[in-house]
């Protein structure tokens, strides 16, 4: 028994090396000086730790980092809240109408969003003309693009998470004469805690990492961190230390969230995958 366990641990650790290696490479490479980069393979540790690249890139990335925070946190909050409203309505209604709603939402969530973005620009241009404001290449426009795609997804997630609440709770509140909004606020929202956190973390990480939506809806590289990281691929040529530093800095927020609150993120992934089996 002991030997078997040891064998399994060894097999897993060997396999895990393949997963750790790229992260290790990025981390080590971002600590290298210019001389070191020119002469060494990408995955070796630095001859001596040189933090100048990291600080230089961090300074360069300040604006996109702040912009991404400004955009993604409200988007994730909005998507999660609106999603929980939808989930409650679907849960309470429970008939053909709510079934159709959920199928509509699910199908739109799983259709590749890239092909829907071209018409989205048209919508944005339409709103611009109608309301006389600028959305294309602005942070609100980017937020609108992300929210359009992630709100239905958050609704789907919350619809799955809400099923853990016993219907009796809601029914007894109804008997007590509470209205729908009051039940939602007083009974449902407090019980949805873990589901809300899962959805929020999930949408936050996805919108932080999204590349295509900012690529289409903005110009330049400063409105979203994924674009900024991408810009280093072109401009740094063979100087991998800068690319690695940008990749590392841009990955720290989602990675820290994933490691600290990973079980919430995983719950979000599993809910989308297994459709609320557990």
């Amino acid at each position, binding site marked *: 028994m002991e030997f078997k366990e040891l064998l399994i641990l060894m097999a897993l650790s060997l396999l895990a090396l393949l997963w750790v290696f790229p992260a290790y490479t990025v981390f080590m490479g971002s600590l290298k000086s210019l001389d070191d980069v020119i002469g060494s393979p990408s995955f070796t540790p630095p001859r001596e730790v040189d933090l100048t690249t990291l600080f230089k890139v961090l300074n360069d990335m300040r604006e996109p980092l702040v912009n991404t925070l400004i955009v993604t946190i409200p988007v994730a909050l909005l998507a999660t809240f609106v999603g929980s409203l939808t989930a409650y309505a679907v849960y309470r209604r429970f008939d053909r109408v709510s079934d159709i709603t959920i199928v509509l939402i699910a199908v739109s969530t799983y259709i590749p969003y890239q092909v829907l973005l071209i018409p989205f620009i048209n919508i944005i241009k339409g709103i611009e003309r109608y309301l006389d404001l600028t959305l294309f290449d602005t942070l609100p426009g980017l937020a609108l693009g992300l929210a359009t795609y992630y709100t239905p997804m958050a609704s789907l997630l919350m619809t799955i998470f809400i099923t853990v609440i016993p219907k009796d709770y809601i029914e007894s509140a109804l008997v007590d004469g509470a209205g729908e909004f009051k039940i939602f606020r007083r009974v449902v929202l407090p019980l949805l805690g873990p589901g809300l956190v899962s959805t929020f973390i999930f949408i936050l990480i996805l919108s932080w990492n999204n590349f295509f939506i900012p690529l289409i809806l903005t110009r330049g590289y400063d409105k979203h961190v994924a674009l900024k990281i991408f810009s280093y691929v072109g401009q740094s040529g063979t100087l991998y230390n800068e690319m690695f530093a940008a990749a590392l800095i841009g990955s720290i927020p989602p990675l820290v*969230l994933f490691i600290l609150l990973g079980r919430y993120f995983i719950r979000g992934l599993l809910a989308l995958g297994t459709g609320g089996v557990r």
Partner: protein
Amino acid sequence: MELRYYISFILLTLIFTLLLYYGILWNLIVSFTNYSPLNPRIEIIGFKGFNDLILDEEFRGSLLRTLVWAAVLVILGNMLGITIASLIFQLESPRIRNLFTTVFMYPVALSMVVVAIAWRWLFDHVKGVNVILNQVGLPEVAWLQGGNAFWSLVLVSVWVYAGFIAMLYLAMFYNIDRTLIESAIVDGANTLQIMTRIVIPNSKQGFIVSTVFLTLFAIQMFDLPYSMLFYNPFTETIVVYIHKKFVAQYFYIASAAAIVVIAISAFLVIPYAMLGIKRWVLRR
């Protein structure tokens, strides 16, 4: 819940969802017209868009590449996912289990651009893993040259998603009735027999879910090829093709190709979404 309450609760989600459907409809309409910002007069061109599309060798190549990508990702992703899940399933300590789950899962929490940068350098001819291959006496591999680039990127996508697939299977494994496994142990079955005869066959649903997801991931593949190799003809997927045509303002072609992508995804997704509804309804 009364309909007027229902609608006010779902209103915002409904608006966003309808925007997405508007996107589908827009593509459908534009694919039958010669719409373009450069074009003053919009005319209906019928199936010309789809006709041009089928005749375009680049489109056929990118569609084929996407389908092959999906097939290989489904096969390798499931194989590796089942292997990782089966190994983790044997571990007693929840702490070590969590550690390995985090290690195998973390790529899905990264931007594909980051993944592309890391692997671009590991695949580098001079500064990448070829250095290691050389040292242990193995021949060098031209990872990103010509057609090789496609297979290298497919492997990277397997690397990204295998941990996620393993988690889906693990969730299924833990759902299996423990008494089934215990009675098999009493009957003298070994670990391998328990996995291959009881646990894995009882996780068919994991296979369905993984296959749908991996296929969708492959159909949507854009960030990885674009941010590693830009418009490389050997790694051009269907979404990269659409993006390229869109940037070049060939809207009717881009839209016709978008309709093909939507049709393929809908073919997969609609039965899957219906299945989900059935499951929720049964639960209640």
